[in-house]
């Protein structure tokens, strides 16, 4: 703009200098160009190439149509993978959000609030791999000799037989517990901030209106912080759809604990099957996209009401 005004004589200043509009456009493109290039090279191209590969065979030499997807949705071991992922999704989200909310409400009423919050939040600072190793010790099972696992130490102390927690039925839940241990703190911190945003006088008004504490929680607090609950829940859903580390470190996907991301990793790097692994990636993408869209829509709706 500065260029056109300095060059154009004052009498012509109202009509745009020749080409100044296209010049503006050019400058705009120059500014956003690098970002667009990054998105294309590192996001769009991989997405479309993965999509393409998912319709090809294991070494991408032959078009196989939907065969890879058919395999994913019919093969017995693949169905277990999908079932496990759904279990993770349902239990993981429900437990982290519910426990996070419960703890947020409870710590709000105690004096050691910041200490309690820190203690519950700390596992977030541990890497998934580290957490996996810690919990492997907790769940450790020795076929013979002394039990060094925390749980088995407790169980045998009370005279029961030691359990192979990560092998027996219910081992998926044992893994989900690790994730819940790590992420409840995150949910709690965010929900706690939202709780503090609920004005005291509204709670008092409800109390005077005759609401019990339970009614206040479910009819006032939860609806008022529902946007935050939705954010936390969708963050958990996206995390859980992609769950990899905990399973990979603790069971490697064995004993019926496999999930999509681990299976994808195995198919790609151990079995060298580009087709199946790409198809798994596409399935994961398709599962996550609606959640993202929901999140973005809700965010926009919220912005619009401001």
């Amino acid at each position, binding site marked *: 703009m500065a260029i056109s005004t300095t060059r154009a004589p004052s009498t012509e200043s109202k009509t745009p200098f020749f080409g100044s509009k296209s010049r503006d456009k050019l400058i705009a493109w120059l500014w956003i160009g690098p970002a667009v290039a990054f998105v294309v090279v590192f996001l769009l191209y991989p997405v479309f190439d993965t999509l393409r590969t998912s319709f090809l065979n294991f070494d991408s030499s032959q078009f196989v149509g939907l065969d890879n997807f058919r395999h994913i949705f019919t093969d017995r071991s693949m169905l277990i993978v999908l079932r496990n992922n759904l279990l993770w999704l349902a239990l993981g989200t429900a437990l982290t959000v519910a426990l996070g909310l419960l703890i947020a409400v409870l710590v709000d009423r105690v004096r050691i609030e910041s200490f309690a919050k820190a203690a519950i939040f700390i596992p977030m600072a541990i890497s998934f791999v580290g957490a996996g190793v810690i919990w492997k010790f907790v769940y450790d099972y020795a076929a013979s000799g002394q039990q060094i696992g925390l749980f088995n130490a407790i169980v045998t102390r009370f005279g029961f037989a030691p359990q192979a927690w990560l092998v027996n039925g219910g081992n998926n839940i044992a893994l989900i517990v690790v994730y819940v241990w790590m992420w409840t703190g995150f949910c709690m911190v965010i929900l706690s901030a939202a709780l503090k945003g609920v004005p005291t006088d509204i709670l008092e008004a409800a109390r005077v209106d*005759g609401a019990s504490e339970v009614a206040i929680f479910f009819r006032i607090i939860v609806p008022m912080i529902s946007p935050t609950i939705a954010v936390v829940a969708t963050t958990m859903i996206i995390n859980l759809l992609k769950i990899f580390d905990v399973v990979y470190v603790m069971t490697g996907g064995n004993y019926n604990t496999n999930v999509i991301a681990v299976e994808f990793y195995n198919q790609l790097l151990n079995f060298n099957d580009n087709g199946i692994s790409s198809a798994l990636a596409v399935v994961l993408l398709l599962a996550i996209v609606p959640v993202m869209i929901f999140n973005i829509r809700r965010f926009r709706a919220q912005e619009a009401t401001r």
Partner: protein
Amino acid sequence: MADVRFQHVYKRYGENAPVITDLNLEIEDHEFLVLVGPSGCGKSTALRMIAGLEDISEGELFIGERIVNDVAPKDRDIAMVFQNYALYPHMTVFDNMAFALKLRHTPAEEVGQRVERAAQMLGITPYLKRKPRELSGGQRQRVALGRALVRDPQVFLLDEPLSNLDAKLRVQTRAEISRLHQATGTTFVYVTHDQVEAMTMGDRIAVLNAGLIQQLGTPQDLYDNPSNLFVAGFIGSPSMDFFEVKLHRKGDGHAEIIIGQGDEQQRLTLTGHAADVATGQAPGAGDTSDGRPLIVGIRPEDFTLNGASGGDGQTISGVVDVVEHLGNEQLVYVRLPGAYVPEAAETKGSTARLGPSEKVSPGDRISLHVDTSRLHFFDPSTTKSLV
């Protein structure tokens, strides 16, 4: 419908001095009682005690015949209007008003009727389906009133409900709340820091300061016979003017007061009731010996402009500082000798309320005629009024 009684009520936070000290107050059934005082005087705490939102450290609180110290807010059958409205933001206006009824499992049909009726009284029927954020401040305030109204409670508590409204709306809503009180006949307890609201709305007013009731009475009683310096300075706008004076008893049985010192000294001869008080002829007047220091209060409307410059013992003179024209009157700020400014007074210095046609400009030296029968006397050490 019920009366509310405080009996020797204290409120303490930890080891600190009590916020409310030995509060004894009987709010009668159907009464509109205003608790007024500066911020931090304990008026809101007292109201919140009635609501059950604040524990009572000591003493007893009755609603009707029941001691409610340990009764939960929801079981007290009271309704409260909050300063910031405290509407439920996720509910429509209808649901906001219906919430309390629904919690009591009132049949849906009756809920509808009661909300409808309250909405009609307050003129908010068109907004019943809206959310609070879509309403203006005044409309929100009505919804807050409506929410209390549908409950048909024993006692209506209002905590500075007008303080977030603009001046015009405040005057309108003030009248509306008075009308509401007349229509419902319920006991109203109203907290405000604004003495104009207190004067215009209350059947009786309790003036609080530092956790103590300074005076309880009708608005006129408080205005005419303030019991101490605090009430005298707090009630009335502009505030009463105060002067540090010395009482001088003349040989002929008359008395005068000496305002200011040295060259600035001016004298006012006392007449009427004021003379009786100053000479100890009124009951309860206390020490009225010669030369005794007193604080004298003069209401701004008890001054009139006097062309002559004193000498008759009924005028004092000073230099005009600022003149405020209000159309129907003018407020003239005058520098007078011996002026005394108590902490509660809203105006500093002395104010005279003069007719709109008087020609006064800043810098003028004017003499003001004082209605010496209407003077108020206070003891400088106890700040109590000499009756």
